[in-house]
């Protein structure tokens, strides 16, 4: 399973768990317009670390929260390559 697929699957699972309506996920969709709120996004980051072993935000550098779905996926892909 690719990183992208894992991220999109996790978003769908979290939306279902939190009773949120998930928008069709496209690369240019803003994260905060996806239907996931801040709690959902926080759970997403935690779950992705559990599943992928990737934590782009825990490096100690002030990594900005990506604006779009595409940016989010690319951040995780880039972090995976570096680690």
């Amino acid at each position: 399973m690719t990183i992208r697929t894992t991220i999109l699957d996790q978003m769908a699972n979290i939306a279902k768990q939190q009773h949120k309506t998930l928008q069709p996920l496209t690369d240019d969709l803003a994260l905060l317009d996806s239907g996931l709120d801040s709690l959902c996004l926080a759970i997403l980051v935690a779950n992705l670390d559990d599943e992928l072993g990737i934590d782009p935000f825990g490096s100690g550098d002030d990594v900005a929260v990506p604006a779009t779905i595409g940016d989010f996926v690319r951040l995780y892909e880039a972090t995976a390559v570096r680690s």
Partner: protein
Amino acid sequence: MPVARDIIAAQAAGAQASNLVDSHVPGLVAGAGGPFMRPVWVGACFGWLHTKDATTGGDVAALICPGLARDRLDAHHSLRLLADALADAGYPAMRFDYPGTGDSADLQSDGEPWQNWQRSAHAAVDWLRATTGATRVILAGLRVGATLAALAVEQRDDVAALALLAPALRGRSYIQQLQMEARLQRGEAAPRSEGLEFHEVQFDAATINRIAEVDLRELKLPPGLHVAMFMQAASKLGNDCADAWSGQGAKVFSAGFAGLEPLLRHNEETEGTPPDFSELLAWIRRTVPAKPVPLLPLAWPEESLAQLGWIETPQRFGPGDGLFGMLCRPDRPHGDMAVIIGNIGRDPHYGVARFGVEFARHLAALGIASLRIDFAGLGDSIGPPGKADVLTSMFETSRDVDISAAAAMLADIGYRRIAMQGICAGAYHTLRGALAEPRIGTLLLVNLPVFEWHAGDTVDFVYRRTMKPGRYLTRLGNIDDWKRVARGDFHVGEVIVAQSARIWQRLREGMLRLAERQGWLPPQSVGRLAMAALAQRGVRTLFLFSPDDNGIDAMEQEFGRDAVGLRGRAQVAYHIEPQLDHLLSTPAMRRAAIQIMAQFLGDWPTSGTGAAAGHGHPAGRSTR
């Protein structure tokens, strides 16, 4: 069973101080016609013991370890139902608050939370066994509570079963979640070296590292231990844990989360359905059958907890003693003022980020008592008849009876000047409750969202109705919003309906205000009628808002820009505090709000209830 009341030994009439002699005996209280739940203190930790009836314990008891922050608030009601269900099935069950959380005593300034919480879980188990006659225990935990329960098992030899509900299996990812939530809330990241402050969680860097090292795949479990994992989704990590524990001889049962979703759902609107614990209970009955034993005839622990500056005593009151409140009093002779602190939304009485507790203990330090309550069907209060176990709605359920009962209870024990405080929906109910309850003489309304709630209204609709058109107009230039419209994701129709209602209401209100000012009509709107009625009684009201709060729009609709319609009323203050947000989410915001409210209370004259202030904060917008 009725609850005995405090006996007041009042000093000379008119004196500023009155002694309150605490001879309160809470007694056992029936739940919703079923198991008993009794408030208890274990050391400095507050908790509830649920038993099948007044005299029956069990040879197997259960300790329920809650989550933190939003996990805790959203699950409180559901975990009460779980404790009831366990007790009804013959397993005495205890819920409790870790040190520095819920109603428990604050952690000392040098107290390390993670180790203190683990110690408190052990103390709770020991107390539970000593009280119920249990020789074995079930540890059940939700989210990080499951983590704590699992860690406790490693150090005990009396745990028969471990039930993990959506467990945080790795401390590192749990910390990440909290840090991300904090970051998104604040809009900026804080380095891990600076610790973490989020809701009631205050971790320094050392605690963060300690928690981050926890990995339940490395848990050492006794062979034969029964473990159930109820997971929100299948995961490699969950499978690894199950494999590791099975490899040690534990008997692992893995299940999904179907029916348990209400535990972790932030439901603002509907009454919802209670969680379905049948699979969990069936597993428990199957793996650890229990038999009843008499509750041991130990003296119940102290009914109050006294710490530096305050004494807290759980109270049951109201119809059938179904309502719960925590009375917090100064630990020295004090005056006759008490503040009722209502629920924020549907969160339990201790409040988001433990605001209710922080406010109550701050008031006690100032010599003011308080009663933080759960409205019927919220927190630890039983629901109304026919809806005993239902999480009652945020706005539609009237709280007038609950508020009057709280005021009556405080008056019974000698408080003559009674104020009430509420945030958001709590402020809405505070205002409405005060109209019906003549004993309330001062209102502290934080971010009051609306003056009137119609049956069938939704939070979204009211939000859109009160939002200024300008906020929508500025989005017309945003290409992303147009994309949402094109996809059908942005409900333009609903916005138009809500804004149309707003426009019509504004026109109507403007004309009515003009007619009222000219003396052609008496007050017409709900808000103006309410304030006129309160003014007649001399009730003092503080409207405190965060900047850009939607409630400011509701105020403007009623009283004009900057609440001009309230100017000149000495009993009313209207204040917008720049550093606040809607739920007072940071410690600095809570301190600022508490300071403003305490100052308003401090200006309350001691002679007569609700007399015109004559001094203090005149009405009119004030900002700092």
